C-alpha cells in the first residue's frame, strides 16, 4: 500500500507553479523526510495530500486509493500544520475536549497518558506552555486520533535543540508503538538524518529525489581524484555535482549499476544524507527517482 500516491500533480498560484508534474509513490511503514529550500513546494504538496488544497492538475490518493480529502482519508490521516496552531486561551484539557468532539476517532486515554508522561498539566492555558510543550501537545492531539498516516509540516522549525530531540524521541516512540507512517517536512536536513528512512527532495516545485535512504546512499558515492581528469570521468559517469579546488576534484556520482567500477586514479567514498541532498539542490537538472535512470540524470554533468 502507498500512503501517498500522486500522478502529474501540480498546483499553480497565479502565474507561478508551486508544484509541477509530481509523480510520487510513498510506501507505507516509512518515516519520510520531505526536504527542500523555502518555497520549494513542500507545504503545497502536504496540503494537497491532506485535502486542504485542490490540485490544479493531476491527482493525489492516500492510504491505498482514497482520494485526498475524502471522509475515509480524513479519518485515517492526522496533520499538524506549521507552528502547531492551537487555541492559546484554552486549557490543555479543553483543547483535548474540543479535538475529541471534532473527530470521529479519538483515544482519550492515550492523550491523557501521553500528557502525563510529558509532565504537561491539564489545567494550564495552552498559551502558557513552552514552545516544546505546545509542539508536544499538537503531536499528542494528532496521535490520539490513532492515524495510519501522520503528516507534520516543519514540526521542528520553532524548537530549541533540546525540545527538538525530545519531540523526535517521542515521535519515534509512537512509530515504534503504533507502526504508523510519518511524512515530515523540514528545510534542515540534519534534523531528519537519524529518523528518516525515506527521502523526498523538492526543489523549485519539482521532485528531484525520491527513494529509500539506504538505497540512495548505497547508490551514490563521492569520487576524489585529479581535476585534470575530471571532465573525462564526468563524460562517462552520472555526475550529480562536481567541486574542484586546485588540482583535486570531488565528484558526487550516481552509480548506474550496483558495483560500478571506480575509474583508475580515483578514490571512492560513501556519501552522507546531507551531502547527497545538497548536491542535488545545487544541480537543479539532476534527479534520482525510482525506476530506470532518467534522462535528466544522464544529462546532468555539472561542470563547475
Amino acid at each position, binding site marked *: 500500500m502507498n500512503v501517498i500516491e500522486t500522478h502529474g500533480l501540480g498546483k499553480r498560484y497565479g502565474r507561478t507553479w508551486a508544484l509541477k508534474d509530481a509523480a510520487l509513490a510513498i510506501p507505507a511503514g516509512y518515516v519520510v523526510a520531505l526536504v527542500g529550500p523555502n518555497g520549494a513546494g513542500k507545504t503545497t504538496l502536504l496540503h494537497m495530500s491532506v485535502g486542504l488544497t485542490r490540485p490544479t492538475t493531476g491527482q493525489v490518493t492516500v492510504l491505498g486509493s482514497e482520494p485526498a480529502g475524502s471522509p475515509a482519508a480524513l479519518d485515517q490521516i492526522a496533520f499538524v500544520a506549521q507552528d502547531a496552531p492551537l487555541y492559546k486561551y484554552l486549557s490543555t484539557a479543553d483543547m483535548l475536549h474540543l479535538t475529541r468532539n471534532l473527530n470521529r476517532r479519538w483515544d482519550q486515554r492515550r492523550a491523557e497518558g501521553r500528557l502525563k508522561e510529558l509532565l504537561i498539566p491539564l489545567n494550564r492555558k495552552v498559551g502558557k506552555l513552552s514552545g516544546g510543550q505546545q509542539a508536544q501537545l499538537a503531536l499528542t492531539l494528532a496521535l490520539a486520533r490513532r492515524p495510519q498516516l501522520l503528516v507534520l509540516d516543519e514540526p521542528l522549525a520553532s524548537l530549541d535543540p533540546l525540545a527538538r530531540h*525530545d519531540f523526535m*524521541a*517521542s515521535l519515534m516512540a509512537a512509530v*515504534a*508503538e503504533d507502526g504508523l507512517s510519518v511524512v515530515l517536512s523540514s528545510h534542515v536536513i540534519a534534523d531528519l538524518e*537519524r*529518523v528518516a528512512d525515506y527521502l523526498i527532495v523538492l526543489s523549485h516545485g519539482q521532485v528531484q529525489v525520491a527513494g529509500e535512504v539506504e538505497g540512495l546512499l548505497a547508490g551514490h558515492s563521492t569520487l576524489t581524484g585529479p581535476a585534470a581528469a575530471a571532465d573525462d570521468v564526468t563524460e562517462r559517469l552520472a555526475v550529480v555535482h562536481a567541486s574542484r579546488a586546485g588540482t583535486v576534484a570531488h565528484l558526487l556520482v550516481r552509480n548506474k549499476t550496483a558495483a560500478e567500477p571506480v575509474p583508475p586514479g580515483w578514490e571512492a567514498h560513501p556519501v552522507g544524507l546531507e551531502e547527497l541532498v545538497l548536491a542535488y539542490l545545487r544541480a537543479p537538472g539532476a534527479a534520482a527517482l525510482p525506476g530506470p535512470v532518467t534522462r535528466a540524470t544522464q544529462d546532468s554533468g555539472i561542470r563547475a
Partner: protein
Amino acid sequence: MTIDKGTDSAGPADGAGERGQAPAMVFRLDPSSGVPTYLQLVHQVEHAIRLGYLGQGDRLPTVKEVVSSLAINPNTVLKAYRELEHKGLAAGRPGQGTFVQGTPGAVGLPELAALRKTLLVWLRSADVAGLDEAGMVALFTSALRDFHDRRGETPVPGDRDGGRSQAGTSEGVA
C-alpha cells in the same frame, strides 16, 4: 549456588528473571564517527559483552526504550538487533524482548584486570623506550596481525574454565 563468576552459566531463563525489568545497558551515539547508527549499536553491545558488562541472559533495551532516548528510527534498532541475532550474540524472545545469548571469548573480570595490569607495564616500558602513542598503537596492531596470522595455522588453545566455554564458543564466533 555460590556467587562466583564460574557459576554464571545457569539457565538463561533464571538469569533473565533475576535481572528483572531494567535493561542492562543504555546506548549512546557518536555523531562525528561516520559509523552508521545501527553499527554503532551493534559495536556497543559487542564491546559490553567483551568487557563483561553484559552477560548471558541480560535484557537489551526494547526498541521503544532506545528510540525514546536517542530519537532514531525504530527500524535502525531492529536492524542492529537482527545483526546481533545473526552473529549469535542475542536472541529475541516473543513478547519479552531481546536478550544477550552468546558470550564470545568472554573473559572474567579478574582475568581482565590482570591482563590490563600487564598491558600497563608494557605501555610504561614502551614509553621509557621513547615510543609515542601512535607508535604504540602501530606496534600493537602489527603484533596483533602477526598473532592472528600465526593462530590460523595452529588450533586455538582452549584454556577457559569449563562452565564458560560451553556458553559461548561455537555460537559466538561467526
